[in-house]
């Protein structure tokens, strides 16, 4: 759509005066939810997402009897935008949860073998719930920062006689082996831009979310948007992401 945001972007300008590859102010605070095993709130501009980690015990999958598991859920709460309604997650919330899930899982950040309680019988299931509080664009990058921050805050509870979870009493911190970050590189006309707000998002043509590990390997990709891109675009977007994730990663320390 040829909006005001579009006219600015194709001239390398942005509504709020930022540079094309500049993020809005990012705020992260961990340990904000008393009952969660790990939690964080992340704000990027006025986009705000709370991530909470709840540990439950469950049965392992048949083909990985000595591994725990991770489930990422996202809810676009109806409060977060005048356009949302209550109900089961739609395709955007589902996609967001799955992209965040893959960035964590594929980067091998969590050693699922360490989440085994009794092989073949009982393992830890980590539920990462992403609660979107306010939607002003760039939800995926914000959600990934919130999720990683909540994981960094996560403690594994003690177990009473291998059965009952002793809530509030912890065995150990959850160990994270890697430090991945996700950057969504956006394209409008021939311009590349990062961290669009909601108004800018409506002007975008294509997006590529790229998860990058601290060793600069790529560990998840997802193209979005309804326009096509060239191979060279992809390569350029990957380069931008590798550079930018170095910056974001510092926030996760």
């Amino acid at each position: 759509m040829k909006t005001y945001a579009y006219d600015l972007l194709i001239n390398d300008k942005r509504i709020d005066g930022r540079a094309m590859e500049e993020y809005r102010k990012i705020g992260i605070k961990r340990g904000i939810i008393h009952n969660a095993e790990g939690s964080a709130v992340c704000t990027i501009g006025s986009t705000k997402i709370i991530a909470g980690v709840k540990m439950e015990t469950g049965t392992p999958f048949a083909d990985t009897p000595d591994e725990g598991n991770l489930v990422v859920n996202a809810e676009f709460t109806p409060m977060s935008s005048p356009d949302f309604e209550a109900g089961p997650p739609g395709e955007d919330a589902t996609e967001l949860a799955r992209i965040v899930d893959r960035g964590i899982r594929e980067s091998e950040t969590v050693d699922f073998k360490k989440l085994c309680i009794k092989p073949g019988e009982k393992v830890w299931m980590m539920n990462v719930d992403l609660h979107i509080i306010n939607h002003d664009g760039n939800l995926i990058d914000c959600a990934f920062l919130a999720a990683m921050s909540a994981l960094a805050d996560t403690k594994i509870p003690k177990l009473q006689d291998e059965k009952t979870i002793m809530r509030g009493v912890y065995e150990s911190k959850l160990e994270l082996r890697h430090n991945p970050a996700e950057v969504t590189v956006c394209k409008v006309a021939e311009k590349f831009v990062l961290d669009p707000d909601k108004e800018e998002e409506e002007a975008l043509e294509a997006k590529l979310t790229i998860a990058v590990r601290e060793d600069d390997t790529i560990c998840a990709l997802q193209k979005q948007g309804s326009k096509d891109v060239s191979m060279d675009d992809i390569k350029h977007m990957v380069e931008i992401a590798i550079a930018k994730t170095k910056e974001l990663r510092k926030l996760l320390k």
Partner: protein
Amino acid sequence: MGKTNDNLIVDGKRLDGRAFYEMRPITMRINAVENADGSAQVAFGNTEAIVAVYGPRKLFPRFLQENDRGIMRYRYNMAPFSCTDRIRPGNSRRGIEISKTSRLAFEPAAFLDDFPTTVVDVFTEILQADGSTRVTGINAASMAMAVAGVPMRDLVAACSVGKIQGQLIVDLNGIEDNNSEADVAVAMMPTKDRLTLLQMDGVLTKDELFTLLDKARENCMRIYDMQKAAIKNSFKQNPDAEAAVEADKGEMQ
């Protein structure tokens, strides 16, 4: 946080050190959800609720509209990570009931008749649950509605009172709630001295009930003063400046 056999009263104090008629520390903040027409965040100790209000706005689809008055929709929802055990997303019977009684707590206060064909949407998310969640939500909703400009006869203030181990108390926390002999939720229009919500579980004599209702009335008046102060305060500040500061220091201390 479930049932316990331990004493809830030790040396004439409650487990968290409070006197019987002492409320927990209360924090109130306006403008917690940028997109909303009005929003607020309220904490009673570790119980924390965030509320966004949208409206009055035109209701669609059209066949839901009422021609002689506006309607209110109220969602009370617990975030998945708010409790000791994870809450599965989706409607619960408890949530449906609380949403209904909370909505009825505001219907006497709001001048909905003046806005035919419109809706006021009130979205309550309980971020942390440690007892008295519905009244915490109502207190935040009241402030959010005021900020959204929904005309009201009075603010609605709410609190809980109850009885543990033979002793009447106010503002039940989670472990007190789960092991109480009685638990009463009250909402009022304090300056009108009128009740808009009353729910009670447990066993009380008539005299105990009436004593507790008087305690509730006192506390609602105190809460009312805090609500007014928080709203007044927020209008003095430059909201843009405030938002920037918040992103900086994390949202939720």
